[in-house]
């Protein structure tokens, strides 16, 4: 097994400093839709300028470099303990090089560890063994501001009038977007999971965020829900930063899980416009990034 610490460091650098092309393109389209001279358009101009600057200078797009969440798919026979050690070493080094801000705070003492290494679940790393030879590592940096506006609902919900069906899902998701206002650094991307238990549901809502903005859900019903939700959410006119405007969300990605007969959870993970998501693939001696 090779030492991939350097490769992981590059993954972290790229994710923190270089916004994925699909997200940037979507922000550019959003800019065209806002009234010229509006605060909303001004906000998107600043955002786009910032994205270019971060890429050029190799500095973090946003100073809140968030919780690093790694999803590792590895071939049979790889040591997850070693991979974890290498990822943690890369995260500490990335912090030293200011690609990441020290973000791991001991909840009991309030002390910041200074290098982004906390207990074994900070950074978050998920491992899954898969067939084939390739090692595939996805990373998102999930900022605190947008994480704080995430929400979970248990259907039915009387206050909102949401029943246990996709129409009910639509209603609670819109409620979540309304409650978030601009606080999650709108325009955001919503990861929505339906079903599961409370834990698996939130987990799946984060997984949904790994999808590209322009891909379509393979499930026709969910694809319809995603489009409807995107349209409806934008009708709320919360706009970039909550200044009011046309673009409140850039997209919605939904995922369905089996559930208990007694439970029907809907989890919404809100990802800010700084949707820092990158993938690294290791095949033999070659490492590629996308």
């Amino acid at each position, binding site marked *: 097994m090779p030492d991939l610490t350097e490769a992981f460091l590059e993954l972290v650098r790229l994710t923190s400093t270089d916004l994925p092309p699909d997200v940037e393109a979507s922000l550019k389209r959003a800019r065209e839709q806002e009234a010229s001279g509006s*605060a909303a358009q*001004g*906000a998107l101009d*600043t*955002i786009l*300028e*910032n994205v270019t*600057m*971060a890429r050029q*200078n190799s*500095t*973090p*797009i*946003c*100073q*809140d*470099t968030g919780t690093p969440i790694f999803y590792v798919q590895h071939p049979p026979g790889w040591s997850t303990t070693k991979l974890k050690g290498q990822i943690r070493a890369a995260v500490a080094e990335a912090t030293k090089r*200011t690609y*990441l*801000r*020290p*973000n791991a*705070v001991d909840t009991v003492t309030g*002390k*910041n560890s*200074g290098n982004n290494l906390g207990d074994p679940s900070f950074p978050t790393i998920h491992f899954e063994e898969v067939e084939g030879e390739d090692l595939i590592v996805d990373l998102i940096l999930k*900022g*605190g*501001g947008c994480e*704080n506006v995430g929400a979970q609902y248990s259907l039915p919900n009387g206050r*909102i*009038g949401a029943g246990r069906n996709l129409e009910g899902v639509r*209603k609670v998701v*819109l*409620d979540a977007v*309304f409650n978030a*206002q*601009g*606080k999650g*650094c709108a325009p955001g991307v919503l990861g929505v999971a339906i079903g599961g238990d409370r834990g698996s549901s939130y987990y799946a809502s984060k997984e949904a965020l790994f999808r590209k903005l322009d891909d379509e859900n393979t499930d026709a019903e969910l694809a319809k829900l995603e489009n409807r939700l995107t349209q*409806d959410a934008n*009708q*709320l*006119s*919360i*706009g970039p*930063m*909550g*200044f*009011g405007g046309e673009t409140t969300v850039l997209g919605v990605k939904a995922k369905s899980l089996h559930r208990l007969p007694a439970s029907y959870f809907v989890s919404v993970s809100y990802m*800010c*416009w*700084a949707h820092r998501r990158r993938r690294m693939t290791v095949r033999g001696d070659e490492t590629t990034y996308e």
Partner: protein
Amino acid sequence: MQKITLPITDDVIRELKVGDSVSLTGVMITGRDAVHKWMIDTFVKKSRKPEGDDEAVYEALKPILDGGAIYHCGPVVAGLDTGAYSFVAAGPTTSIREEPYQADVMQHFNIKAVIGKGGMGPKTLAACSEVPGVYLHAIGGAASLIAQSVQQVLTVHKLDFGVPEAIWVIDVKDFPAVVTMDSHGGSVHVEVETQSKAQLDKLLAS
């Protein structure tokens, strides 16, 4: 875009209206949760005794904050090992966490501009009328761009709060922001929330 130089006079504040774009130049400080709590406990409510360098830091901050600005920001800073600090990324953090403290802190120090993101609540809005002051919304996530507007890090206090929580004294040039709460009771946040609520009710009924 209106250019504003720190410190700010009452006349300039009174002219600012919600929706105005501004660019700020001058010396300001960063401060978030730990700083606000420290200010309130030690100097406003005086529920704890000053210790260590508390008094010295307070004296150093007073002239900067009189007519000045406080920025809700936890920056990424280079040069921590050498002391030759520079800001690498410095976007705003969520302001509402300071709602319990902000009005008192504004009054105590005569702070004219509170900068952050997401807006603040009724207590701060009332303080904006009284002090008078404004809430300036920076562009959340625009961290590299704002860091570029920081010409120099003059000094840092309370580094033991941690890098994001410390008091960074910075000299900025053309720092971009939008007035979202003014000294006449106006708040973009209240407006947008009210109209989006009406829209939400329609969408839930359909």
